């Protein structure tokens, strides 16, 4: 039986060869390790136990051990092994090559494009986590690594919550757990279960990247934490005039006090950061000062009565905030098919009030685009198609916020649609079957290829000929 104290460079633990110490924090120690049968670099994490150790150390470790084992995908460090809880507590995971997001925060304020790129990577990672029923609850630059390819990896699940597992995290000293600067208002009130808490932290990080400042500083006491329940943050554009309105709109929406006011999913944040021109800018995006003392007093009063709604299981909640892609082909679809597709979409958006709809159409790339006249023609075709999409969506009478339009260019429509669906976390594709058109005989059916190959659910709409 090996003891926790035996883990040190040069030691051999359950087949893992312990190499150098990488980091020693207040809660845990990290070592690089290797095992002959595993080619990639590995990291061993051990909690600090024994005399003088913080009592939360072991709980955090226990939580991380429970959760990390269940997670998959490129946005977490891959799990390899764990030690038995009785004698040697350790976790072995992938050693992620890459830089901490702290480096980018150090360079802030950053240009809007870079903020959007980093924010999109982080939002994508958070959505991948939420889909696996986990809320991180300690999202901060130090817990985010960026792989050389630009993908974000979330680390340290010591405060995380898995929707299928009991919450072991203890509230210490009657203060909420989390990091003062990034903690959401509901976490301040002790609620630890909603994916939108991570979206709030994402908003704080975007704010920090765009302005170089934190919206509420770094409080350490409960009173300081509570301030975010009623004080509005200074609008980012007031601190850095280079911040575009659309970016401020996105940031302040992530930072709404009531979670119902925030983005429904991190996927929606990623979608908006990828397509700034489609973000509907409201007063929130334009304001240059925070509201006056009367509004703050009102918000303070509301904060006293603020009672967060009951906890949903993350994946069940995400299911109600699904992203629907409607693949439209106005050039070939009949009025009847367009209407039937609208009915199919209406049934989804009526049942699920958080659902977002992207109307997508694929244009054949123009052969004339090399020349000036060709580019102009392509541009006008693009605009024309956008107008057709808007026309199709009008009878749905959806709030601007729930609707997006995209015209893609590709000679392979099925492939373009599926690529868009993958890149934008689409949960459901609604597509029309074209019946027996000449085009279908020539090209094969786009809908049948999408139905067979897409990675999400597909509804194929048919009408009687």
């Amino acid at each position, binding site marked *: 039986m090996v003891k926790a104290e035996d883990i040190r460079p040069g030691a051999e633990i359950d087949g893992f060869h312990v190499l150098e110490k990488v980091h020693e924090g207040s809660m845990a120690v990290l070592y690089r390790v290797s095992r002959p049968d595993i080619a990639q670099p590995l990291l061993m994490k051990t909690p600090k136990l024994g005399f003088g150790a913080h009592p939360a150390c072991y709980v955090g470790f*226990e939580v991380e051990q*429970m959760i990390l084992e269940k997670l998959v995908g490129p946005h977490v460090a891959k799990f390899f092994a764990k030690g038995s*809880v*009785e004698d040697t507590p350790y976790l072995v995971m992938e050693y992620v090559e890459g830089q901490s997001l702290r480096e980018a925060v150090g360079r802030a304020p950053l240009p809007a494009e870079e903020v959007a790129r980093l924010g999109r990577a982080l939002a994508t990672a958070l959505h991948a986590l939420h889909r696996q029923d986990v809320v991180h609850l300690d999202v901060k630059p130090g817990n985010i690594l960026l792989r050389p390819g630009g993908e974000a990896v979330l680390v340290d699940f010591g405060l995380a919550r898995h*929707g*299928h597992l*009991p*919450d*072991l995290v*203890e509230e210490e000293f009657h203060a909420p757990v989390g990091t003062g600067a990034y903690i959401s208002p509901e976490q301040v009130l002790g609620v630890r279960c909603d994916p939108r808490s991570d979206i709030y932290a994402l908003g704080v990080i975007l704010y920090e990247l765009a302005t170089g400042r934190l919206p509420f500083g770094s409080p350490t006491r409960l009173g300081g934490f509570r301030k975010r329940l009623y004080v509005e943050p200074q609008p980012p554009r007031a601190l850095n005039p280079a911040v575009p309105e659309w970016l401020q709109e996105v940031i302040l929406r992530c930072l709404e006090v009531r979670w119902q006011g925030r983005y429904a999913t991190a996927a929606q944040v990623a979608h908006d950061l990828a397509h700034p021109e489609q973000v509907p800018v409201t007063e929130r995006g334009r304001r240059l000062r925070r509201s006056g003392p009367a509004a703050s007093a009102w918000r303070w009063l509301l904060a006293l009565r603020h009672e967060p709604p009951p906890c949903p299981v993350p994946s069940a909640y995400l299911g109600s905030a699904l992203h629907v892609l409607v693949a439209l082909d106005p050039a070939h679809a009949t009025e009847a098919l367009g209407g039937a597709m609208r009915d199919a979409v209406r049934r989804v958006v009526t049942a699920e009030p958080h659902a977002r709809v992207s109307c997508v159409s694929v244009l054949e790339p123009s052969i004339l685009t090399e020349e000036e006249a060709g580019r102009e023609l392509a541009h006008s075709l693009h605009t024309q198609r956008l107008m057709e999409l808007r026309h199709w969506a009008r009878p749905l009478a959806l709030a601007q916020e729930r609707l997006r339009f995209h015209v893609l260019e590709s000679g392979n429509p099925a492939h373009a649609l599926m690529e868009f669906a993958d890149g934008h976390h689409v949960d459901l594709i609604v597509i029309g079957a074209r019946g027996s058109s000449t085009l279908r005989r020539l090209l094969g059916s786009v809908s049948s290829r999408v139905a067979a190959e897409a990675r999400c659910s597909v509804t194929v709409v048919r009408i009687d000929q």
Partner: protein
Amino acid sequence: MKIALLADIHSNLEALRACLAHARGRGAEQFAFLGDLVGYGADPVACIELITGLAERGAIAILGNHDEAALGGLMENMDFQARDAIYWTRERLGDRERTFLGGLPRLVRDGELLFVHASADHPEAWTYVTGGRQALNAMRAGGVAYSFVGHVHQPTLYYEVGDEARAFHAVPGAPIPLSPRRRWLAIPGSVGQPRDGNNTAAYAIFDRTGRSLTFYRVPYDYLSAAGKIRAAGLPERLAKRLEEGW
């Protein structure tokens, strides 16, 4: 080694059979019956026969308050329908069934595991574990890492966090790792008379090797079970509640 935890069977043969088949299909090799084998339902003899057979091959079976009442114990804490069912059950039990029920222990310990019908804090008092305070008392009185308890029909997992016990309502089918470093008290829910608005039978499986617990809900032929209750002339409410799960 997987052990199936089956509580509050209440003479519901259809539910018992469905849970046993479900548990075997998931690799359960051991069975623990957490009390209240009889009462309410119309198949006391068949249920006891099935459980006796398993007990002879090593299954754990615990005495519940309805079992005690069926043997002639007090019923002062029971409502009228429960009493009616007990009087009816007493007439059906033969010597074999009485001998089996009479020989059941109130509490069984097996290493770090404890099996009991109600709170391990004075099991004979039949205290319901319905909140953190009772759960904490029960866990501490038991003194082991894992307590498996019946009596309360709502599936719940209690666990010690600091100086309190918290309740967790599990998602059926999702395994929960239970660290031996803290105390846990699991109520698998009722096999034969679910009361949480879900009319499917409830039970759980504990994996002793991997130390993980999974709650399950099993659809069963509640129409037949309810039909037998009506045919036996037992109170209509006892049939109705099986159909609706209250």
